[in-house]
């Protein structure tokens, strides 16, 4: 399994591969194009030139398979403010692969949201909302996680917790691409891709 791309403008001649069992941290200063890169990779942004390959084939050809094995969390959490965390996750799950209620409760519990399952999300704090978004990772069966600044607004426990989740996912053969300005301390094969240097090189 790998994913590969070439790209111009913000970052020209960028080329990288991600294999299962690996974590890639996309680094770069503000405005260096991290968010743009992730959105291009997962197909939300099509304003680019270059190719994205999934298992050796262009993504366009294997779109469904790619989407089924990929999960993305961006700057905007994808959490409806009126629904409760449970309802939000139930819907998210149904989009990829349905999860039953016990899985959802367990996922929320692992992210420290036990007892918050049935509170409307608008009544959650910034960090709690982010945790709901992250709970999606646990109930999905996707092998590639694409995370844009997932540590934002998380407190110290939350950060540690997420780092453990990432390490666990990678160690069971999953792949992670993430951006963050935090120094990352995960216990697994990790690589960094520095967009600032890419830009300087080009």
């Amino acid at each position, binding site marked *: *399994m790998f994913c590969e791309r070439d790209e111009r403008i913000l970052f020209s001649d960028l080329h990288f591969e991600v294999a*299962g069992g690996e974590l890639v941290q996309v680094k770069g200063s503000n405005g260096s194009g991290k968010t743009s890169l992730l959105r291009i990779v*997962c*197909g*939300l*942004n*099509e*304003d680019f030139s270059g190719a994205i390959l999934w298992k050796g084939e262009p993504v366009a050809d294997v*779109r*469904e*398979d790619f*989407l*089924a*094995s*990929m*999960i*993305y969390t*961006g*700057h*905007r*959490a*994808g*959490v*409806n*403010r*009126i*629904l409760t965390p449970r*309802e939000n996750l*139930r*819907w*998210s799950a*149904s*989009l*990829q*692969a*349905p999860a039953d209620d016990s899985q959802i409760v367990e996922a929320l519990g692992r992210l420290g949201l036990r007892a918050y399952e049935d509170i*409307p999300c608008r009544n959650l704090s910034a960090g709690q909302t982010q945790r709901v*978004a992250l709970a999606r990772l646990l109930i999905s*069966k996707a*092998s590639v996680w694409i995370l844009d600044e997932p540590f934002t607004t998380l407190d110290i426990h939350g950060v540690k917790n997420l780092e453990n989740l990432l390490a666990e996912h990678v160690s069971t*053969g*999953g792949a992670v691409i993430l951006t963050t300005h935090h120094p990352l301390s995960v216990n697994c094969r990790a690589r960094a891709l520095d967009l600032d240097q890419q830009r300087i090189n080009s």
Partner: protein
Amino acid sequence: MNDAREIQGLKGVSTWSAFCATLRRDLIIALKRRNDLLNPIMFFLIVVSLFPLGISPDPVELSSVSAGVVWVSALLASMLSLDNLYRADYEDGSLEQLLLSPQPLYFLVLAKNIAHWLISGLPVVILSPLLAYMLYLPSEAYWTMVLTLLIGTPVLSLFGSIGVALTVGLGSRGLILAVIVLPLSTPVLIIGAKAVTDVMFGLPVSSHFALLGAILALALTMAPLASAAALRISVN
């Protein structure tokens, strides 16, 4: 986890379940807000009663414009509630998740459109006889009006959806939507209102219904595809 068969197997079941889940989600959101359920009706009622205030309380005069007023108000009520369709999802990022679903977007968009119609179109259809009464619509035209609205309002939701999908990423709201959606909806309005007026004059209306039905069929097959494409562009 990477076994393609497993994913394939899951997928067969889940297009239907994703459809249902999306429909249910949107209905739950509307139910929780409550206002979403009440407001289309109230809006319809209020707009309809603006016309006598603006035009004249005279029964004869009102009766001659009643079909048009009810239809225009239904159109406006449907259009005003369109904003609920994708806006909130766009802003909280749910729309990105929808687009990243491996399920065919056609069905997901269709589910959202159906939910929208159930919330905003159906109540209008149900309430229309009362308003028709208040505007002195001749009673022989009631059934025609209800039926044309029943066929016409889903078309309004489906066409409207394209407009919202195109404009959901833009900062300014409301009006650009109207400018895109209203022209698309005029054929339905014209045919619907014409059918009602024709019945009032004792003319045959089956051809109008055939036309409306054809438009609905067309809208059902094409509009969700267009909306899906538009959503992809907007989220870009």
